[in-house]
């Protein structure tokens, strides 16, 4: 159980490409921490640098009080679950789980005992004689987790832990992971490209792009107050509506009308300023009757999400997406009014893409 601290961490590949470019973060003891970003953003490189599988080019890495910047992977007290689980195909489940203990020269009987103990904690009863090839995806993942936690590591690293599971099993495994991490209280870092996974599991999320940290915060912070338009569009099952427009006396111009100025931006912008207005589809309201501070819209596409409906509507030249409860769903072609929640909408600077308020 330890903190992880990176200071100015850089991983540069031959040829000058920077996988991780100046990363500063302190991951607290016992925290469940997510590295989130699109493919190629450097999140896996950062994870592998923490594990010691990639040499760090610049900066430092501390685990607890120890400087492990140049330490061998085996000396860092980290365990990792790989995306493909990397279970040794020629060993049975018990031997796989006990492999780290074998390296530490623990006697065989003790190893088997510990493997059974850990396996029992991860719902692997009666599977200890099986080979990995004879297990389901979910079981393989639990064996990989059991092997990782068998030695009680200070830090647990998970590389895309849920990506190899099918959709239904993924939800089950997600809850399982969360419970396991809470029980073990081990500092855990996991990499994912799935924002829903990060929001659901993590205590804090680091959103990355091109090797750089974009935003660091609790899931609700990253969701409610993204620091720039990249984070705003990346987080959320339905991407945030981002409209380039101008501030007017009435609020923010949208088509022929205007929506209310976001509360947090009051006083930070003046009429005539060019801004990017952002609002999540979940925080927009659809109404057939005219509402105050609402703009008129025409429904183009209606997508059923189950309990709700995602509307794509045009307001002037802009397209807005609105999530509407199922029973209020209009038909395509219908006209109505879109009202924005002033507390839940944001303004961004169109030049720097950063949050104004």
């Amino acid at each position, binding site marked *: 159980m330890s903190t992880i601290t990176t200071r100015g961490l850089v991983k540069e590949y031959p040829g000058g490409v920077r996988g991780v470019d100046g990363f500063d973060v302190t991951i607290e003891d016992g925290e469940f921490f997510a590295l989130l970003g699109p493919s190629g953003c450097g999140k896996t490189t950062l994870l592998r640098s923490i594990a010691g*599988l990639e040499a760090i080019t610049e900066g430092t890495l501390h685990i607890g009080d120890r400087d492990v910047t140049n330490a061998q992977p085996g000396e860092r007290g980290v365990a*990792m679950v790989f995306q493909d689980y990397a279970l040794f*195909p020629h060993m049975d489940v018990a031997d796989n789980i006990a492999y780290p203990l074998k*390296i530490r020269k623990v006697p065989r009987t003790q190893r088997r005992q510990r493997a059974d103990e850990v396996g029992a904690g991860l719902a692997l009863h009666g599977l200890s004689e099986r080979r990995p090839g004879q297990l389901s995806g979910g079981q393989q993942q639990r064996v990989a987790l059991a092997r990782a936690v068998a030695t009680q590591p200070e830090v647990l690293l998970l590389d895309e832990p849920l990506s190899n599971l099918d959709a239904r099993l993924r939800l089950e495994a997600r809850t399982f992971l969360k419970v396991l991490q809470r029980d073990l209280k081990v500092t855990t870092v996991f990499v994912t490209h799935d924002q829903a996974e990060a929001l659901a599991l993590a205590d804090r999320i680091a959103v990355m792009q091109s090797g750089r940290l974009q935003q660091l915060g609790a899931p609700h912070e990253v969701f409610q107050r993204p620091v720039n338009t990249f984070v705003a569009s990346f987080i959320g099952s339905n991407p945030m509506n981002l409209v380039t427009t101008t501030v007017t006396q009435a609020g923010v111009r949208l088509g022929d009308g205007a929506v209310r100025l976001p509360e947090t931006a009051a006083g930070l912008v003046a009429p005539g300023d060019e801004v990017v207005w952002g609002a999540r589809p979940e925080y927009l309201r659809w109404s057939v009757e005219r509402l105050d501070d609402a703009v008129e819209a025409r429904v183009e596409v209606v997508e059923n999400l189950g309990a709700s409906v995602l509307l794509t509507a045009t307001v002037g030249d802009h397209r807005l997406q609105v999530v509407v409860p199922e029973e209020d769903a209009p038909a395509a072609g219908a006209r109505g009014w879109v009202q924005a929640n002033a507390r839940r909408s944001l303004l961004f600077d169109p030049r720097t893409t950063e949050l104004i308020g």
Partner: protein
Amino acid sequence: MSAPAPRSTVRHYVSRVAFVVVVVLVAAFFALPLTWLVTAPFDASPTLTVEWPQWTLANFRSLAENPYALRSIGNSLVLGLGTIAVVVTLGALAAYALSRVRIPGRDGLLYALLLLSSVVTGTAAMVPLFQLMVQVGLINTQTGVVLAMSGGLLPTVVFILKDFMDSIPKSYEESARLYGARPGQILRHVVVPIARPGLAFVSVWVLVQVWGNFLLPFILLRSPESQPAAVIMYTFYTESGQADLSLISAFSLVFSVPVIAIYFLVNRRYGFRFHGGIKS
């Protein structure tokens, strides 16, 4: 449905018949020598034709009385196993390194070696090879033959095994490294067991190559006590100077048994299959 036109039916039958005739001819071409190999050793007076034998075991009895015959099988085994040991050990290490370490011009190097390997044991190299063995004092030793054979086979083996090692995901080794395994342990615990089917295949292939090689041991080994079966067979003549078919046929059968036996043994023990892991 309309009946097919008569012309195409005829053509169909003609092509079927032609196909069957060709297949039978090809099968006979391969089956006849094998039939001879099984029947001739038990014939009282074997000839070069396949015929129903006059059953006898006398050929094997005279084979057992020959001072060099059985010993030469042992020599062949020594050469084969020795070469396997050298080639598989060195080949596995080289293939693993070449698969995991980036060296500029690696593939070019491999292809060049593969191309040049036929020179080492090729006919043109026999005179210099002979002189080399005399110089280093390995002439007329089985060590010399093992080394020369290994030199000829290693490039191909490295080539095959490198391909095999490339197909083993790196995450296995990285996982072991994270648990503190040293390179030697990673090799023993992870890489070799996973590469075992490849190693088994290469072992059998090397054995077959050495077992059937005539020229190299014929030139490098001078005394009949150390010559392998493939060379000794060459000495089976009758007093009148004709090939002694009763000895040769019996010896041929004995000669082929160990290779077949080792194939089945290796196949059962290690299996020519890939373990059922996640193979991305």
